[in-house]
């Protein structure tokens, strides 16, 4: 086994905020002493936008992917060319997370058409005979907590055959009455989405009730913009024919990385919605949509 290069970030959860100092150590280990042409460390952060094939044609999607938007990119030379002794060498580093100009450190977000990612890369340049060594490591940026108090915005809802839109033959639908409420559609991202749902009555047996968390990503480009809604996760809250008029809790934890505070910039937007999906035994699918506003407190 030859030489190995590793980055250890100090914080176990790898979460940093703008203005904080990203610190850790680069660990170099090898059996023999290591000759090198210098070690450098790079912090990169960018927003990658992708146009979906649905919004623009296949070819455009392929060629016209929008250029990544760079948020941060800086390199420091850690070690001048020289030699590491055999064994393990730890080199501590500190990186202040500052952005230039009016750029903002958006919160890390892994989506389909929008990706906001931050990486830390360590490069060891070596002579012609040996390959250069590189190690990258993702770290997570959380945006600064929102100031001020979050105003809860509870929503009550009632679902009956009458409230449904785009139904072909309303008469064929079995009768049902589902009531419920969400405690708030303004959500703190670290807190679960909560609420209650009561099946007051239903002619058909209920197969399942699910919460579908949906991201809505909008990318601006030359031809206008593309808006796409995709599922993040689907959480079942009721399985089988639940007891009538007994409230079933609505509870969903927002997954990390796949969600971020609702984001609106000139080039792109990331928004979230939740669908309450009721599946009846006759394969009827009832969906009720609620836009959410996520924020970090």
């Amino acid at each position: 086994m030859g030489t190995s290069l590793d980055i250890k970030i100090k914080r176990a959860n790898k979460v940093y905020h703008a203005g904080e100092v990203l610190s850790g150590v680069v660990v170099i280990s090898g059996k023999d002493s290591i000759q090198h042409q210098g070690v450098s460390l790079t912090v990169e952060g960018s927003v990658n936008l992708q146009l979906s094939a649905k919004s623009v044609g296949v070819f455009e999607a392929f060629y016209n992917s929008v250029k990544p938007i760079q948020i941060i990119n800086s390199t420091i030379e850690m070690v001048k060319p020289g030699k590491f002794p055999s064994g393990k060498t730890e080199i501590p580093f500190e990186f202040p997370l500052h952005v230039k100009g009016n750029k903002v450190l958006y919160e890390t977000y892994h989506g389909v058409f929008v990706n906001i990612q931050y990486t830390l890369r360590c490069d060891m340049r070596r002579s012609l005979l040996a390959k250069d060594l590189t190690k990258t490591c993702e770290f997570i940026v959380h945006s600064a907590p929102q100031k001020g108090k979050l105003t809860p915005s509870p929503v009550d809802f009632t679902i009956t055959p009458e409230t449904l839109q785009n139904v072909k033959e309303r008469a064929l639908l079995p009768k049902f009455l589902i009531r419920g409420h969400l405690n708030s559609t303004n959500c703190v991202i670290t807190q679960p989405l909560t609420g209650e749902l009561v099946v007051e009555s239903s002619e058909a047996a209920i197969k399942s009730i699910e919460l579908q968390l949906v991201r809505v990503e909008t990318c601006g480009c030359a031809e206008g913009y593309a808006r796409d809604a995709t599922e993040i996760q689907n959480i079942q809250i009721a399985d089988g024919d639940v007891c009538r008029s007994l409230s079933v809790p609505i509870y969903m934890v927002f997954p990390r990385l796949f969600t971020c505070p609702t984001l609106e910039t000139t080039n792109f937007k990331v928004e979230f919605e939740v669908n309450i999906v009721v599946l009846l035994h006759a394969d009827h699918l009832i969906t009720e949509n609620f836009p959410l506003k996520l924020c970090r407190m």
Partner: protein
Amino acid sequence: MAVFPWHSRSRNYKAEFASCRLEAVPLEFGDYHPLKPITVTESKTKKVSRKGSTSSTSSSSSSSVLDPLSSVLDGTDPLSMFAATADPAATVTRPLDSSRKRRDRDENSIVGSDFEPWANKRGEILARYTTTEKLSINLFMGSEKGKAGTVTSAMSEKVRTRLEELDDFEEGSQKELLNLTQQDYVNRIEELNQSLKDAWASDQKVKALKIVIQCSKLLSDTSVIQFYPSKFVLITDILDTFGKLVYERIFSMCVDNRSVLPDHFSPENVNDTAKETCLNWFFKIASIRELIPRFYVEASILKCNKFLSKTGISECLPRLTCMIRGIGDPLVSVYARAYLCRVGMEVAPHLKESLNKNFFDFLLTFKQIHGDTVQNQLVVQGVELPSYLPLYSPAMDWIFQCISYHAPEALLTEMMDRCKKLGNNALLLNSVMSAFRAEFIATRSMDFIGMIKECDESGFPKHLLFRSLGLNLALADPPEGDRLQILNEAWKVITKLKNPQDYINCAEVWVEYTCKHFTKREVNTVLADVIKHMTPDRAFEDSYPQLHSIIKKVIAHFHDFSVLFSVEKFLPFLDMFQKESVRVEVCKCIMEVFIKHQQEPTKDPVILNALLHVCKTMHDSVNALTLEDEKRMLAYLINGFIKMVSFGRDFEQQLSFYVEARSMFCNLEPVLVQLIHSVNRLAMETRKVMKGNHSRKTAAFVRACVAYCFITIPSLVGIFTRLNLYLHSGQVALANQCLSQADAFFKAAISLIPEVPKMINIDGKMRPSESFLLEFLCNFFSTLLIVPDHPEHGVLFLVRELLNVIQDYTWEDSSDDKIRIYTCVLHLLSAMSQENYLYHIDKVDSNDSLYGGDSKFLAENNKLCETVMAQILEHLKTLAKDEALKRQSSLGLSFFNSILAHGDLRNNRLNQLSVNLWHLAQRHGCADTRTMVKTLEYIKKRSKQPDMGHLTELALRLPLQTRT
């Protein structure tokens, strides 16, 4: 070699006896005496600290002397020491640094030992809920393409794999195992459990999680519903394993090089890495798509909340409780609740509220059981309601048990009231009865009976309700006044049960109550009823365990067997056990109880008849295949019975009982041995009653006893058993003046000796028999001393015959047992040549009075001695080889001692022989110098006694060899 003549020393036994006797000192009360009974005044187990104080636990009534046995034990016997240390163990191990406050809380959060743990229920459920139908395990291990339907349309491949990674187990394979038998299914689950452990051990945490998710998914499947409770048990085992693994893993991450986390840590002490890992698990689990796996997996790692925050568990439990509301199937949901209660009790038993919440939530969904969805499902699976409802019992019993544990009376009353209000509440009622304190139930028995009666016939089977009630009443007593009414009410219903299985399960439980509180009349009625129900169609054949348990309960309460057997239906009840093995088991139980509780010997014909019948049954079960242990057990039981039979002064009746017993129990040797001993004892009793003077009648009776023994002994197998019994019976015959019979016994014994094998089997091991033979013969000799010669046979014919047998017996070459026997014969003959024998039997003239020291008799005797001595000397000569020198020396010395003790050393030749022997013993330096010195000292001491002056001279001729 010259023949040495024998001259026995004449002895005055009386004088010797008098000179040897110690002066008798009367014992004052309170004096110490080693044989005085020891009275334990106090046992000091409490005082035992960990080091164990060495104070003696017992002291004899004499002032300060210790009982040697108890003082060895260093104060306390080891058993009570265990008991004493077991208690404080818990306090010792508790961390010392914890503050008092925390300790108080700890005590609250530990479930006491009076809480019946889940482990006890486990086996019971597995055994009870079985199926013969085919099962299937469906592990959705492939990605759920197409299955997820509409919602997946726009998901990019990358994200989807990332999300569904959790659902996958082995990429791309969907395994559905169909047509599994129950055993296959259990094996599969066990395999999964193993692969979970393997995956974990090989650091494949994600795979482990997948396995757990897939397993808990199986719990949402209610096909083959009869098996569901068992499935729950199996799968929650896996969940428990998983929960433990995760907890231990995170716990081990908290252990730094510096410090180990104490058992009761607070979240501040947990390092960030551990917290992050823990949080990761919770996030992963929160994103599990399906409700049931998400619930179960989260519940399984509930304990891990301790790493994150102090209030974590108390926030989680109510949330999980609410989450169960989303489970539509009432059976699945009640088991989910049971699991949550189980985990909750384990992790945080002080959080009672969520237990109660589970119960009340359950009541809210109770009506679902009778809803359409469930009914349809039952129709599809072809399961009837009465067999469906009991599937709820294990889960409900568990929930109820958790809630009622140390619960205040008010809560129990409230719960009961709530149950009462719901329609068709038999199921609830049953769980209340099985989980609540027995005392609580017992005091309200009449209420319960009323409620049971009101229950809907079609739902939960009533016999189960009565069974549960009966179980409670067996443990706790209902109010005095209600007792009879309770029995009447209950039995009215029980007796109407059509199905014999249902009936017997119920009756079994109620028998205990009946026995406990009522007389034989009621018990008789109950037994009669059971017989009536179980006889048609030989229904008893399927219910042996229950019937057996009824018998056990009855005999446990009726210790007086005359009462027991006067219960008319008891014996007819026994007749229901027609399968032999079961029958024998029942008989054994009865006999055990009899032996344990019968204090007085009995002649009650009812008991005798019944127990003879019982014993006969046990005896008749013995066949060639019966194990030794089993035989021993049966023999022990039968012997116990035989010993307890006594007809008092009616000896003839007693003998005829023994005759009868012999004919009944001829296959069990130990029983025959016991009978022979009993008959011998009977003969001696008779002698005692007649004060040694038999009348014509008693003499005849005694001869009958002797005859009994004489014809019984040959049927035994064990050779030493026979020999000893011959000897023993011979002694008894002699004591009863049956001289010719005694001769017959002794002759029989002598003729049996050649048959003694070289090796005999003792406790399954082959051992050489010689030492046993030696022992027997020595015993025999001392009896022969007093046996008078038969007028028609020659002088000492028994001794001669015995000597011939010994001569012909093939002895082990390497042993000197033959010579030892000859030495003993020499002793016997010396004793016989005395004017007055050492002991006599009352009313039997021994040879001393028969021959009156006749010179002819003495000459015969001496001749015999010479022959024996020649034999001994011959043997000593053959031992003059290197390897045998040691034996020669010790034999020589022992022969020397014999001559010293029994021979007349005033005779020159004998004197010379003894000196030679002394030299022989010392010749090769094999003798033990100390023994020689002691012997010499003894001779010198003896020489000072009157008539022993010649020994002084002898002592001078015996040099001591000095060791170089």
